């Protein structure tokens, strides 16, 4: 039975509500039960009357309270359920087939889909329906399993960054099998070919319900460069009202750390499906951009990768002749500037000035001789991967560069003078270009017939010449030669960069050749012909949620597939690295069709929100209980017996009141430590270790008391999070694998403590089983504990460390174990032994940490009567070891308290005397 959003599992119980008026009458008539009391003074009471205002009837509000309690109980027992599921019979008893679009567009509200799917699976589990889940992005024949089985895998289910292609839809439709099932289709809301066919196939199997999120799909198309700024276009599927979005540009900062570098607000006008904006950034910043993302949209379609398309190569143009004022068209670099300006950043300046800017390309137009410094600088730059592009010209032809010997920065030797063909004073026609050979980077470019060369510099025939020619004239003379130097290369155009020697700079071929040489960067995808035969390796790929992930072992992709092939499991969107550049393959580009999915009217389309089924019975019964409790109080109040109850409440409140003692105690602790010398140990939370540390410090304190003028008070346990540290000269820190890592604040105070002269003695207590390092659990823990600490470089205690002679003369520092070295702050590298003195003048302060694993506390540990708590070694040797442990402790405390006093050279003669030297 349902009432609005309420349903009842046992509606017949509601009939009991009819009894409520009867209850009203009954309750009204019964006053609260009186107390019978024997009292001789009753004789005096006879005839007294009660105050009229007091009635023996139950007050109406108490009655109402009780009625409400009873009503709540009745309704609660009737099992009310908010938003009950329709328990429709028939076809819904059979198996359930869940179809997921599971594309990038579905990722925009994947959590909602997953929650709905989870509740659906839970329901199916209750009804024992087998469930199959079919993902259209990875179609496979549906496998029906128990719903609980699917639920356990639900967290692993993630949307894919590619949309289901028509082929996938067809495959899914064919793989459906014959089993009839109720179908729930989680659509991503985008129209795609093949949907209708799949829907028909699904409807053959059973009733289909579509779940579609009403949230609009937003997508970002790849950025384009326009007039020096980045053009960004966002698209939406449904033209709705005006909407503002923010596109964030992510990239690396100069240190290489990924950051959000810029943001661009975009606004969709009403009824528009696209929103564009231009983001103007400095070239330096732009070159570091890696991706753009619509804020608040966590799916692959809202992310677009920049690849190399935003990277503009920096080209330095250096001309040999700067003095031809006014003759712009004859300037050696004019055509280069025109060709490069749209796609590259052009640097002007002297060669030595532009080299530090590390341009991608340096163009030397008719520059013959480079000075020694320039030559070395350029050489170094080329070897690191620079492209040196040289053009010939009258100067180069007239110079002796690369005449006898091949100059390092020239690809070939040149013959003197060059040649001129087809001029007024020469034979022959101007030469045209020969087709580019297969191994040339220019292979495949069309050669316009009107490109002619009338003058050029000639290469000396050479055994290596043939390999270096990448373009030649129709008579076989080299036109462009190339030589690899280190990681870079030198390319020489045997003609001028202006139109004096050839018409090449006037043609489109010139620009294409520059592009092929990667002097200028391509804006769009490379041409098909260029992609032929190349393999592109994925570097980073997008997942469905729009996160970039390392590609790992994904196989390379043949170049032609990058153009036009639909995205899929073997062609994921992401960054691909090719022969000379990185290419971004994005989920959405300008051509991707984005249209809302159209479902036939017969298919019910529901949202993802599904009000959860909430049983209310428990709440109502709890409410009834609360009302009855209130009734008890009210009845007590009415019969005047609430006073003791009130007193009990007051007592309870007093008991529950916080005890102000600990704060006081803490202050006392610090005060005590400040008044006397108190050794402290860090509380690890392990009671046994803490007790041992405490007993050990007590033993050390006793020893100090007996043997030295240091008279410490009882040791204290220190909680790093709450206690004041500055009052303790020494912290003993036993390391256990399970102790908690202190908080940031605690570390800040520890560092402050170390900087102001405190000392921490770290004890891993495992020298019997482990060497120094991270081998043991305690050692690993120590590393984690000490990482945030401000600890200087360490070294094993050197023989002449002040720790060896602050009180006793020691060379070993055993505790319960005498295992391994003890580490202290390293001596400065320039510490030297002064002539005639046996000790170096080491650090002028106390080492902030002493690290070892000898379990000193156990060796020091003493009970109240001075008996050792733990055995050390065996027999006399063991006692000797314990004695040495005490001596180490005494030395340590002396070192902490006196600093470098014993290091003072004043004491050397006395020490020498005792050492017998």
């Amino acid at each position: 039975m349902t009432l609005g959003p309420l349903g009842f599992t046992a509606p017949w119980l509601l009939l009991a509500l009819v009894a409520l008026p009867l209850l009203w009458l009954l309750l009204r008539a019964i006053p609260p039960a009186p107390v019978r009391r024997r009292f001789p003074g009753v004789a005096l009471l006879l005839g007294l009357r009660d105050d009229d205002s007091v009635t023996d009837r139950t007050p109406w509000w108490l009655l109402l309270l009780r009625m409400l309690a009873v009503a709540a109980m009745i309704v609660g027992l009737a099992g009310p359920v908010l938003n009950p599921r329709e328990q429709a019979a028939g076809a819904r008893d059979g198996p359930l087939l869940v179809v997921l679009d599971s594309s990038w567009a579905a990722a925009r509200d994947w959590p909602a889909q997953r929650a709905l799917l989870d509740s659906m699976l839970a329901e199916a589990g209750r009804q024992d329906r087998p469930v199959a889940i079919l993902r259209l992005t990875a179609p496979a024949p549906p496998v029906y399993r128990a719903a609980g089985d699917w639920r356990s895998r639900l967290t692993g289910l993630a949307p894919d960054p590619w949309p289901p292609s028509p082929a996938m839809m067809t495959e899914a439709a064919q793989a459906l099998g014959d089993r009839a099932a109720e179908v729930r289709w989680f659509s991503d809301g985008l129209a795609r070919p093949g949907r209708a066919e799949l829907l028909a196939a699904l409807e053959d199997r059973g009733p289909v319900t579509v779940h579609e999120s009403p949230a609009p799909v937003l997508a970002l198309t790849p950025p384009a460069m326009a007039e020096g700024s980045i053009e960004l276009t966002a698209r939406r599927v449904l033209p709705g009202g005006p909407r503002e979005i923010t596109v964030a540009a992510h990239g690396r900062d100069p240190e290489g750390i990924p950051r959000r570098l810029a943001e661009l607000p975009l606004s969709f006008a009403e009824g528009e499906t696209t929103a564009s904006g231009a983001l103007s950034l400095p070239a330096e910043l732009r070159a570091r951009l890696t991706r753009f993302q619509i804020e608040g949209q966590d799916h692959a379609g809202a992310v677009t990768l920049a690849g190399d398309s935003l990277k503009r190569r920096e080209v330095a143009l250096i001309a040999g002749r700067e003095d031809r004022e006014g003759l712009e068209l004859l300037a050696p670099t004019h055509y280069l500037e025109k060709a490069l300006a749209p796609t590259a950043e052009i640097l002007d300046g002297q060669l030595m000035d532009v080299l530090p800017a590390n341009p991608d390309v340096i163009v030397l137009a008719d520059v013959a001789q480079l000075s020694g410094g320039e030559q070395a600088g350029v050489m170094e730059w080329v070897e690191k991967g620079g492209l040196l592009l040289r053009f010939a010209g009258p100067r180069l032809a007239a110079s002796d560069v690369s005449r006898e010997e091949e100059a390092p920065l020239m690809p070939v030797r040149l013959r003197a003078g060059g040649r001129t063909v087809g001029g007024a004073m020469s034979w022959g026609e101007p030469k045209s270009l020969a087709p580019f050979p297969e191994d040339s980077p220019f292979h495949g470019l069309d050669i316009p017939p009107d490109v002619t060369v009338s003058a050029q510099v000639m290469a000396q025939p050479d055994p290596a010449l043939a390999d270096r020619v990448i373009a030649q004239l129709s008579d076989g003379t080299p036109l462009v030669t190339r030589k690899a130097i280190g990681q870079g290369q030198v390319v020489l155009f045997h003609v001028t960069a202006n139109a004096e020697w050839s018409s090449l700079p006037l043609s489109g071929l010139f620009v294409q050749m520059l592009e092929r040489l990667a002097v200028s960067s391509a804006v769009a995808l490379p041409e098909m012909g260029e992609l032929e035969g190349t393999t592109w390796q994925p570097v980073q790929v997008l997942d469905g949620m729009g996160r970039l992930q390392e590609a790992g072992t994904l196989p390379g992709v043949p170049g032609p597939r990058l153009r036009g092939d639909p995205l899929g499991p073997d062609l994921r969107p992401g960054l691909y690295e090719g022969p000379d550049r990185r290419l971004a393959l994005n989920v959405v580009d300008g051509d991707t069709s984005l249209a809302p999915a159209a479902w036939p009217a017969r298919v019910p389309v529901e949202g993802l929100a599904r009000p959860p089924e909430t049983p209310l019975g428990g709440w109502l019964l709890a409410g009834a209980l609360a009302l009855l409790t209130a009734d008890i109080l009210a009845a007590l109040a009415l019969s005047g017996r609430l006073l003791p109850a009130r007193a009990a409440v007051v007592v309870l409140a007093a008991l529950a009141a916080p005890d102000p003692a600990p704060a006081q105690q803490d202050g006392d602790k610090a005060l005590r430590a400040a008044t006397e010398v108190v050794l402290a140990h860090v509380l690890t939370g392990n009671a046994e270790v803490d007790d041992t540390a405490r007993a050990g410090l007590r033993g050390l304190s006793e020893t100090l008391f007996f043997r030295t003028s240091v008279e410490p008070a009882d040791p204290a346990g220190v909680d790093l999070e709450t206690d004041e540290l500055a009052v303790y000269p020494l912290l003993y820190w036993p390391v256990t694998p399970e102790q908690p890592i202190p908080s940031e604040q605690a570390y800040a105070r520890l560092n402050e403590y170390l900087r102001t002269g405190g000392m921490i003695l770290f004890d891993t207590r495992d020298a019997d089983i482990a060497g120094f390092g991270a081998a043991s659990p305690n050692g690993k823990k120590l590393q984690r504990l000490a990482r945030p600490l401000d600890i200087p470089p360490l070294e094993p205690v050197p023989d002449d460390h002040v720790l060896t002679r602050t009180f006793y003369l020691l060379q070993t520092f055993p505790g319960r174990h005498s295992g391994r070295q003890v580490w202290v702050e390293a001596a400065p590298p320039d510490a030297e032994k002064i002539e005639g003195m046996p000790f170096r003048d080491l650090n002028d302060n106390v080492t902030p940490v002493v690290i070892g694993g000898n379990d000193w506390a156990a060796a020091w540990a003493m009970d109240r009567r001075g008996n050792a708590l733990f055995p050390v070694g065996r027999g006399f040797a063991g006692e000797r070891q314990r004695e040495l442990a005490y001596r180490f402790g005494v030395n340590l405390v002396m070192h902490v308290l006196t600093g470098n006093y014993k290091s003072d050279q004043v004491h050397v003669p006395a020490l020498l005397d005792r050492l017998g030297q």
Partner: protein
Amino acid sequence: MTDPAPLRARAEAEAAPLPPLLARAEHLAGTVLLGEHGRRRAGMGDDFWQYRPVQPGDARRDIDWRRSARSDTEFVRQREWQIAQSVLIWVDDAAAMRFSSDAQALPEKAERARLLALAVAVLLNRAGERVGLSGHDLPPRRGEVQIARLAQALVQAGDADYGAPRTAGLLPQGRALFVSDFLGDMAPVRDALTSAADRGVRGVLLQVLDPAEEAFPYRGRTIFESMGGTLAHETLKASELRAQYLARLAARKDELARLCAVAGWQYHCHHTSDSAQTALLWLYRAFDAAEAA
């Protein structure tokens, strides 16, 4: 024939309270030092009272020759008049007296009343008075046996809800001690006092009350019942009744004090929470004053 065994057991149970009551009464009486109990006038007695010159009519054997020899006139030696008085005690044995608001800390009113009455009896007996118990066929007599009889009679409990003073056996010019809570009907009390005053009997009225009867610390809906169950009063808010109850109690006390003043009696109100000794001292003094008056 009744079975002797239960009879014996019953008898022992009955007798059980006697020795403690006696012992306590003796103990209590022992705390009071007996002072002069003469009649403050010449008369028959053992103690010397005065010498006076011989007057005509005096018997010659009354002359105290030793005293007379020291002077010219003859003197008669007079002794203080000592006479045994009869004291009749009435202790309320009604059910109302068997009330104690706190059974752990406070004795029942009846117990306190018995104790005081017996202690007074012990004291009077020592002083040579004759003590009897009204209503129990115990005419005033002297001696330890009489005390034992008194004790035996006192432990018997009556059936009535509220007791009324019994004046039967009151000797003219005698003394009387009425111990009760006087919470019941006042008419018998009034009658008793009037008849006692008519016979020239003077005495003491001791009202024994429980602290709860004095304070009325009750609240909430309550049905108050008398100890015998014959009277009942129901209230919804007992705390509301306190003021009226206390006023009535004060009126009752006033009336008692007034009656006593009119009849030449003395009135005292004793609470079971107070020490029995103070009440005994007061009683002793009161009897002294009654004798002297």
